[in-house]
C-alpha cells in the first residue's frame, strides 16, 4: 500500500510537467480582449498626408494586422492574410518600418490591406500590447477587440478561429 504512493506521485509529476511543456510561453493572454480598441490617428502608409483612425471602422467588423517588411513571419502569414481579406476588411499596421522598404514589400508580395497605417515609432503598437510582429486583432462593429492572435497566422487559426468569429460577428450586424 505504501509502495504505491511513490510511483503514483512520480507519474502525477510527469503528467504535470508534460502539460506545462505543451503551453506556449509566448502566448501571453491579452488584457485587451473585450475592451475598446485603443484610439489612434496615424498617417497612411501610401499617402502620408492622409490619416486614419480606428473610429473610421465603427459599424464594421474588421481585422487589424500588425506587420513589417523586416519581419519574416509576416511574409510567411501573408497568403493567409490575403485569403482572410476576401471575407473581412483587413487594416495593416505597419510597425517600425520605413516607407521605402514597406511599399516595395507590398508591391512584391501583393497588398491585401484595405489600407495600412504607418506607425514608424511603434507607439500605437504599444497601446495595442504588441510585443512581437505579426499580431492580429479582430474588432467588432462597436470597436471592441474580440480576439487577438500573437505570431504568424496558421491555416488552422484562420479557419477554426478567425473565420467563424468574423462570420458570427458579421451575422450579428
Amino acid at each position: 500500500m505504501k509502495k504505491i504512493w511513490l510511483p503514483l506521485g512520480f507519474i502525477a509529476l510527469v503528467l504535470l510537467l508534460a502539460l506545462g511543456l505543451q503551453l506556449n510561453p509566448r502566448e501571453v493572454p491579452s488584457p485587451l480582449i473585450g475592451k475598446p480598441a485603443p484610439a489612434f490617428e496615424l498617417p497612411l502608409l501610401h499617402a502620408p498626408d492622409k490619416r486614419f483612425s480606428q473610429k473610421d471602422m465603427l459599424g464594421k467588423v474588421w481585422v487589424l494586422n500588425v506587420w513589417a517588411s523586416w519581419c519574416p513571419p509576416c511574409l510567411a502569414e501573408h497568403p493567409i492574410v490575403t485569403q482572410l481579406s476576401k471575407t473581412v476588411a483587413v487594416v495593416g499596421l505597419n510597425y517600425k518600418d520605413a516607407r521605402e522598404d514597406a511599399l516595395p514589400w507590398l508591391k512584391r508580395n501583393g497588398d491585401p490591406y484595405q489600407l495600412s497605417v504607418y506607425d514608424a515609432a511603434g507607439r500605437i503598437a504599444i497601446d495595442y500590447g504588441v510585443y512581437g510582429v505579426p499580431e492580429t486583432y479582430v474588432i467588432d462593429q462597436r470597436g471592441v477587440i474580440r480576439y487577438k492572435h500573437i505570431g504568424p497566422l496558421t491555416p488552422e487559426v484562420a479557419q477554426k478561429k478567425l473565420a467563424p468569429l468574423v462570420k458570427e460577428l458579421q451575422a450579428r450586424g
Partner: protein
Amino acid sequence: MARVLLFSLAAFSLGVLGQDPELDKRVHALATELRCLVCQNQTLADSNAPLAIDLRNQVREQLKAGKSEQDVIDFMVARYGDFVLYRPPLKASTLALWAGPFLILLGGLWLLARRIRGRRVEEPQLSQEERARAAKLLE
C-alpha cells in the same frame, strides 16, 4: 579605450542616458520590476530588444511628465497584462503560484517526519541464551 567602451555600453543599457540622474535612477528601478516581453526571462532594464528600449523610453517619458510609478505600472498592465510584472501580484488566479512552494515544503516535512518516526528501531531483545553467550564473550 576599454573604459570608454564600457561606459558607452552602460549608457546604452540604460536606454537614453538622460541629464537627470534622479530620473535615471527611477527609470532603472522601475525597469527592473517590469518584464521584457520579447526575451521573457529578462527585465526591461536588462534587455536591449528594440521593444524593451521603446518601453524604457515610455517609462522615462511618463515619469518625466510627472506620473507616479504606480501610473506607469498600470499603463503597462493595461496593455500587456500581469505578465509584464516581474513579481506577479497575489490574487485568486496566482494563489497556487505563491502558496504552492510552501505547500510542497510542508508536504515534504510531513513525509520526512513520518519516515523518521517509522525508522525508530525496536530495542533488540536478547534471549536468555544469547545473554549468557554475550556475558561469556565479554569475560
